[in-house]
């Protein structure tokens, strides 16, 4: 039986390799030298192509087989079985020491590593919170928001402009940015209340573009594409830090905000509000028929997600001290969405992991920067095929039932 599958796999891979080699032959093999008017036949390339695609196809088939066998086992169990990774991470005996270790590393990080490394980690932490925010809208409430970066821009410009015109400090603007973010969340929420699925995605995509275009073209307000520079770094009781100390300071601010965001989203997920969002995602009509105010639930999801994004926007402006509309393109929205989807929709731990992977890997693999989008696409496809629910599957809370009291 096993020998048979191996044989068919070999055959399939060989056919795939031959096809690919044949199709790419004109590009890979034939080279026209226009200077000497000759044609160079690079037959070795054909061999590389054949060999490479054969091996890749074989690996692919092998993995697919394994996946299908795994799926069969999982279904026959009880449907609750989780992946090995999720089970490992969610095991309290692993989780607790890991959290403690992670916290110590995080606290010591700026003293051990260089400012450059700290800066990278700050960006990663910003994306963790952005991911957690979008996770509320997309992962929990199921409202696909493709214009999420608009709220990030709102926060960043709120701090930049208030600082520029009125010299307001970081700590004054941070709550203002959060409130402004939630306001914009509701502003976007209202017109899209009746939309769902693809239609919602298109409108939110448009919203993101509108905000970016306004920032780019309304010169009197936002200083257009040239952006706003010399934004103050956060200070504490009027102390001004050197660049290096300020980076460390922002790092700790970010660390605090990340912990706050994690606690907030994790608690919301398992609360009455979080359950209402899940129900909304599952079936809107049944959800409303069971007495949940859909309008309220949707607006809450939008505005909470937007609040987190706007808060991060203010931190981002304070960190880079310069912002322009180029930081708030659709690419950013897509990136944040990729973090949520790759990490695991609705899973707090998954989103954190996804943010670190997607932000840190490109940073440390600059050697491959030319192939970044290629690798990015390939990774997404592989994850979607083998782990459609993301790296870490969202875990359902296990409720403790008091049977004695009733």
């Amino acid at each position: 039986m096993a020998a048979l599958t191996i044989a068919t796999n070999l055959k399939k891979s060989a056919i795939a390799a031959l096809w690919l080699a044949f199709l790419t032959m004109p590009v890979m093999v034939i080279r026209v030298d226009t200077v000497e008017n000759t044609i160079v036949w690079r037959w070795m390339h054909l061999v590389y192509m054949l060999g490479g695609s054969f091996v890749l196809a074989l690996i692919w088939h092998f993995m697919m087989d394994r996946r299908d066998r795994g799926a069969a086992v999982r279904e026959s169990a009880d449907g609750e079985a989780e992946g090995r990774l999720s089970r490992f991470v969610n095991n309290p005996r692993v989780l607790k020491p890991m959290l403690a270790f992670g916290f110590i590393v995080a606290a010591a990080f700026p003293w051990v590593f260089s400012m450059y490394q700290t800066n990278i980690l700050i960006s990663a932490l910003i994306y963790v919170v952005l991911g957690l925010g979008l996770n509320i809208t997309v992962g929990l409430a199921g409202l696909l928001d493709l214009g999420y970066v608009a709220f990030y821009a709102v926060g960043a410009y709120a701090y930049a402009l208030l600082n520029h015109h009125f010299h307001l400090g970081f700590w004054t603007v941070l709550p203002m940015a959060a409130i402004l973010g939630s306001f914009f969340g509701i502003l976007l929420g209202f017109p899209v209340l009746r939309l769902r699925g693809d239609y919602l995605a298109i409108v939110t995509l448009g919203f993101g573009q509108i905000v970016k275009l306004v920032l780019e073209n309304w010169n009197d307000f936002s200083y257009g594409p040239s952006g706003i520079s010399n934004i103050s770094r956060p200070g504490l009781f009027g102390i001004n830090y050197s660049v290096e100390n300020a980076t460390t300071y922002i790092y700790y601010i970010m660390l605090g905000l990340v912990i706050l965001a994690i606690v907030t989203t994790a608690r919301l997920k398992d609360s009455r509000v979080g359950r209402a969002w899940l129900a909304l995602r599952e079936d809107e009509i049944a959800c409303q028929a069971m007495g949940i105010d859909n309008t309220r639930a949707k607006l809450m999801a939008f505005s909470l997600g937007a609040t987190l994004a706007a808060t991060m926007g203010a931190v981002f402006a304070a960190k880079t001290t310069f912002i322009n509309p180029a930081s708030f393109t659709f690419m950013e929205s897509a990136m944040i969405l990729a973090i949520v989807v790759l990490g695991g929709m609705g899973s707090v731990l998954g989103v954190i992991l996804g943010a670190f992977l997607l932000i840190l890997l490109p940073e440390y693999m600059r050697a491959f920067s030319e192939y970044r989008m290629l690798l990015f696409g390939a990774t997404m496809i592989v994850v979607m095929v083998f782990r459609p629910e993301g790296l870490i599957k969202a875990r359902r809370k296990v409720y403790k039932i008091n049977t004695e009291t009733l």
Partner: protein
Amino acid sequence: MEHTKNAVLAVRGVSMNFGGLRALSEVDFEVRKGEVVALIGPNGAGKTTFFNCITGIYTPTEGEVVAVLRNGKEKRINGMRTNHVCELGMARTFQNIRLFPSMTALENVMIGRHCRTKEGILGAILRGSKTRREEQQVVDTSYQLLKKVGLEHVANEYAKNLPYGAQRRLEIARALATEPFLLLLDEPAAGMNPQETLELKEMVIQIRKEFDVSVLLIEHDMKMVMSLSDRIYVMEYGRVISTGTPAEVSADPQVIRAYLGEETDA
């Protein structure tokens, strides 16, 4: 508006037009306290449209729908939003089961408790003692309801993995969790075998007694309808053509004609 003294739901002259199509035409309807009322009729007679009109999914073109709440207050509910209708105390199930498939059975029932609990965002984030107490109460009440419909052993199973009959019962438990005074069941026995139908009937009787609710059901299973209901309304082409006790209705020539067709002399 006039209605019988112990009515919980009174419908007067309700019509529903979809463009040029008149799906309901001047329907008068009444459910009294503690009654099991059945609504029957051939396919396409407008039964589900009627359900949707009184639960706020559709706004009737004409007419009045009035609910009499537990505290005796009257409330005009046509045009009211679905979730408010549910909050008032009229909970429904769906003809094609609409559970939350990727939530557990227990969580499905817990959703029903939503409109009877208060905790907001801030409470959820701070998670004070009041919030935790409320959460625990929600869990416990929901578990008790699951027990009532005999599903406590699958409390932590995803709704989509439950067998068909269990899904139907779970929907009823979810509706009961909203503390209704009127339970609206849209074809609860559809797709069930005779044994399951019998169990369902026992369950409805049990529920009516224990939760002190009135029941309005749409059903095609005549055996169940005839043995379970106190009164029956028969609809055809959007009109009520007959009403009365099961015995009266089954003897009504109009009803027989609607179901079996007319004898015509060719």
